[in-house]
């Protein structure tokens, strides 16, 4: 169980931003977009065979040529005085124990390079409409980070959503990494971009939410970024969503449109829509697509 280092990046103090595939690939697209924009270089990779089953085999002229596994790569970029480590995993391990081992290995690399803070990025399934600007749900792993997180733009604390009274959960490696980070004394913040609940099961990415996550990271890193590529991507996905939306019967569409007046944190709430109604909307949309898009 190990890490292959391609080069020594020479980092003494750093921050890490991590993401894996998940709902709408929101975190993955956000972190990969940022990594590409700052032109970070790969310097290490986790040896995958202890964590993942291979994805494909290639045979050439009757001889085994290669076996390909999901990659888990580390990248580095110095921005001003700050060293950033990006971790991008192509898959999350299927078993809890393996998830713990992988997260621990990621933090081993982070600590080797003096990492002081870790961000994880993912999705928050929310009762919002797809025409709305997604907010970012945030949760830190230490009380002392709350004031900073509250100051982030377009961000709400996960524990303050709809009377959660500070409770909630972050599933998968996005949560686990920050839990282990807390146990090992590292600061950690999870940033989760909102995706409409009725889209969350679609096999499509949701770049609008990725953009919201990148904007929060850019704010923290004091970076000015041109995010038009994400806008273009979001435009393409919006077209697909709209096509699906047009197929939905008017009555159901009307109910989904009620979500336009809902603010998840409560401060923007205008229309009366109950939890039961939200559940019914999702159920209706789900049933609609199970029936092959026929009312």
């Amino acid at each position, binding site marked *: 169980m190990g890490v292959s280092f391609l080069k020594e990046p020479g980092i003494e103090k750093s921050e890490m931003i991590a993401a894996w595939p998940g709902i709408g690939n929101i975190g993955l697209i956000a972190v990969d977009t940022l990594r590409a924009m700052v032109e970070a270089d790969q310097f290490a990779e986790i040896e995958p065979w202890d964590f993942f*089953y*291979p*994805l494909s*085999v290639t045979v050439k002229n*009757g*001889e085994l040529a290669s076996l390909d596994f999901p990659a888990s790569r580390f990248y580095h970029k110095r921005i001003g005085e700050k060293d950033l480590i990006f971790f991008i995993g192509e898959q999350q391990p299927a078993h809890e124990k393996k998830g713990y081992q992988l997260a621990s290995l990621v933090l081993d690399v982070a600590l080797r390079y003096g990492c002081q803070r870790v961000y994880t990025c993912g999705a928050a399934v929310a009762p919002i409409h797809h025409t709305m600007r997604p907010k970012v749900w945030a949760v830190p792993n230490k009380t002392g980070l709350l004031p900073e997180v509250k100051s982030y733009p377009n961000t709400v604390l996960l524990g303050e959503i709809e009377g959660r009274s500070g409770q909630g959960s972050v599933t998968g490696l996005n949560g686990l990494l920050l839990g282990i980070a807390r146990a090992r004394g590292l600061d950690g913040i999870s940033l989760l971009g909102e995706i409409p609940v009725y889209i969350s099961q679609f096999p499509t990415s949701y770049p609008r939410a990725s953009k919201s996550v990148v904007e929060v990271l850019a704010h923290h890193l004091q970076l000015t970024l041109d995010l038009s590529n994400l806008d273009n991507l979001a435009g393409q996905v919006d077209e697909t969503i709209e096509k699906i939306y047009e197929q939905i019967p008017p009555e159901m569409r009307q109910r989904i449109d009620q979500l336009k007046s809902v603010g998840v944190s409560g401060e923007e709430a205008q229309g009366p829509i109950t939890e039961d109604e939200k559940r019914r909307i999702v159920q209706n949309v789900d049933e609609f697509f199970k029936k092959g898009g026929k009312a």
Partner: protein
Amino acid sequence: MNQGEAFKIHELPRLQNPSLIVAWSQDAGRLGSKVIDLLNRKLGGREMGELDASAFFSLWGVQIEDNVIQFPESKFYSCETRDLILFKSDSPAQEWYKFLNTILDVAVLSCKAKQVFSIGGFISSMAHTSVRRTIGVVSRPELKEFLLEDVPDIDSLEYQTPLGGRPTMNSYLMWVAKRRDVSCINLWSEVPFYLAAAEDPRACKKMLAILDRKFKLGITLDDIEDEIKSQNEKIEELKARNPDIARYVEMLEKGIMLNQEESEKLAKDVLDFLS
């Protein structure tokens, strides 16, 4: 089983430079497990060791098959007179890399095995009366010579896992063996799709004949020939009772593809009739 070890050797066999033959219980046409069972029976194979199920399988409950509780098995057998190790196992549910390395630890480190053969069936749109083709994959080019007689077109084999698929345990084993510089050969026999969930004695016979030649086993194949005959007779009986089945088999014999509905009906009716 020593603490920390994922395997147990009951009795270290007296072997020189054995070959290891690996097969999986969940195989098309039950080819792998049937070939290992037949080799054990014909060569007087003795159970020599096993892998620890708790390390590689989910044991939160058990599976039931044919109304009987099952438990995953991963067992080694030795055939000292033919210098062979046989390994038959369920496919592991986790820790695949460690599992495959442990197989090689037992065979190569403990028993000094010099090469690994893995066998399996691949599903084909063919009639059960047709000749089974064999394909082979090697871990290093010099091993192709060993297969030329049985797989003359080995050089022309090109393959990539299709989208949505995943590599077989045999492919993964070959990759692990290659990393350890252990020679490895995968041998695959065609299995008609409608025998995939049943048994395909014809494919087993083909595989046994190859192994017999390669390892000079001197085994007789009369009993499996009887099984082929018996299965053919049963399918003829089904064809006589059911004109649709007769038509589907005839189409396959003429090289005509069946549509999904026809394929599913043929597979279901044959399996029901043979069970």
